[in-house]
C-alpha cells in the first residue's frame, strides 16, 4: 500500500486536528500510527477511510485520490473496513445483526447467507453465545470484538483500525493482535492506530508518529522504535517504555 498526504489540514470549528500534515509511505502492508492522545491519529484514519473530507490538501492511497465526489467515496468505503475507537456499533441491533446487516444491504448477500457468514465470523471471535445481545448488554471487550467482526465480515482489501485492543484484557489483546497478523498474512492492507509498541514494532512495516496534528517521524518500524531521530519521538517512546 502507498499513502500520500499532501499538506492536509483538518479543522473542526476552531480546533485544528491536523495542521499542514504531510506523509508519504510506499510499499507497506501494515502501517502503525502512534503518538500522544489528541495528536490526530483518529482524524488521520477517518480521512483515510473517506469518512470526512479534509479542509484542505489532498490524500492519495495507492496512487489514486480518495474520491472527491460522494458516489466515488461511497464505492471506496464499500471496499474498506473500519474499526472505530469507540466501536460505534448500532445500539438497536443485536451483535449478529450488526455484523450481518451490512453484508445483506451493502454487499449483496441473501439474508440467510449474511446470517451464516456473520455467525461464522462471530464464532471466530468467540462471540457465538453473545450473538443475540445488544451492545448495551455486552462488555467493552465483547463490543470491540463485534466491531472488528463487523469490519472484517465483508472481506475488505484495506482495513483501518483505531486502537482495536484498547478495551481488551491481555489474553484477548493477544488473540486480536494474532487475528490482525493473520490479516497481514492474508495480504490485506492495514492502517492501525495503536499504543501497543511491541505489536507496532513486530507487525508493522512502517510507523508514523503523529503529535499535535503534525507528522513527527516516519520510517521502518524497527528503526523508528529502536533508533528514533526526533527528540519528540524519543520522549514519547521513553514514556511508553517506562511503565
Amino acid at each position, binding site marked *: 500500500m502507498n499513502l500520500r498526504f499532501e499538506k492536509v489540514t483538518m479543522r473542526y470549528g476552531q480546533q485544528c486536528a491536523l495542521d499542514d500534515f504531510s506523509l508519504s509511505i510506499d510499499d507497506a502492508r501494515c502501517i502503525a500510527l502512534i503518538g500522544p492522545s489528541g495528536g490526530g491519529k483518529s482524524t488521520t484514519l*477517518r480521512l483515510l*477511510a473517506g*469518512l470526512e473530507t479534509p479542509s484542505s490538501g489532498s490524500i492519495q492511497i495507492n496512487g489514486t485520490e480518495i474520491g472527491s465526489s460522494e458516489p466515488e467515496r*461511497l464505492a471506496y*468505503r*464499500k471496499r*474498506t*473496513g*473500519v474499526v*472505530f475507537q*469507540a466501536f*460505534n*456499533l*448500532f*445500539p*438497536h441491533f443485536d451483535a449478529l445483526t450488526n455484523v450481518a*446487516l*451490512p453484508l445483506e*444491504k*451493502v*454487499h449483496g448477500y441473501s439474508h440467510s447467507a449474511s446470517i451464516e457468514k456473520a455467525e461464522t465470523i462471530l464464532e471466530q471471535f468467540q462471540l457465538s453465545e453473545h450473538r443475540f445481545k*445488544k451492545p*448495551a448488554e455486552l462488555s467493552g471487550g465483547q463490543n470491540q470484538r463485534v466491531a472488528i467482526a*463487523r*469490519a472484517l465480515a*465483508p472481506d475488505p482489501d484495506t482495513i483501518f483500525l483505531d486502537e482495536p485492543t484498547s478495551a481488551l484484557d491481555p489474553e484477548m489483546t493477544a488473540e486480536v493482535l494474532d487475528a490482525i497478523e493473520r490479516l497481514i498474512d492474508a495480504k490485506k492492507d492495514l492502517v492501525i492506530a495503536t499504543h501497543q509498541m511491541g505489536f507496532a514494532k513486530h507487525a508493522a512495516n512502517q510507523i508514523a508518529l503523529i503529535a499535535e496534528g503534525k507528522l513527527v517521524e516516519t520510517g521502518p518500524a524497527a528503526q523508528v522504535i529502536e533508533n528514533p531521530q526526533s527528540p519528540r519521538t524519543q520522549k514519547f517512546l521513553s514514556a511508553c517504555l517506562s511503565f
Partner: protein
Amino acid sequence: MTPRSLFFDSESASKPPSALARAASFAIALLALSLCLFAAFYVLQYEWNWSSVFRYKAKFLKGWLATLGISSISLIFSFLVGAIATLCYRSRFLPLKYLANIYVELIRGTPLLVQIYIFFYVIANAADIQNRYLVGICIMAIFSGAYISEILRAGIEGVGRSQLLSAKAIGFSEYQTFRYVIAPQALRSSLPALAGQTANLIKDSSLLSIIAISEFTLNAQEVNAFTYSSFESFFPLAIGYLALTLPIMRLSRILEKRLRFET
C-alpha cells in the same frame, strides 16, 4: 411497618415503597384535593342539580365518541403531516426546507384558537370544504403535525455523529443510513414525547367546539344550556378527557423508563 415507612420513600432506589404505602399516600393526596374543591363550592353555596344532567348521558357519550373519532383520525394525519414536514426540513432543496421551517414556526407561534378561525373562515371557505368535521380534522392534523415534526426533528438530530460515521464506514447509502440507523433510533427516543403530544391533541380538540363541531366539549356546553346548570356537566367532561389522556400519559412514562434502561 412504621408510620414513617408508610409515608416516606426510602432513600435507596432498590427498595420501592410497599403497595399499602402507595395506596394510602395516594388516597391522602386525592382527599386533600377533593376537600379544597368541596370548600370552594361550599363558599359558593351552589345548588347541585345532577339529576337533570344525568338525563343527558347519551349526549355525553355521543360527544365523547365524536372526540375519540376526531382525535384518532387527526392523529393519523398529524403523523403523516409531521413526518412529511420533517422530511422537507431535512431536504437539501432549500425552498422546501424553509417551507417546513415556516410552517412549524407559524403553527407553534400562534394560538390554536386563531388558527381555527383563520382556517375555518378563510381557507375552508376558499377551498369550499363543506363538512365541518373534515375541517376540524384538517385543523388538528396541521396543528399537531407541526409539534410532531418538531419532536421527530429533535429525535433525528439526537442520533450521534459516531452513529452516522459508522453507517458511512459500512458503506450504507444515505437512504440506508436513514432507514436502518437514523429512523429507528430517532423514533425510539421520540416515543415518550409523541405519546405526550397525542394526549395534547385530544385536549386541544376541545377548541373545535367554537366552530360548532359537535364533539365532547360542545355537547357538554349544550347540556349546561339545556338544564340551566352552570358546572355540573363540566365534571363528566373532565372525567371523559382524563379517561383518554391518563392511559396515554401512563404509556409515555413507561416508554420513558424503558428507554432509560436500554441506553
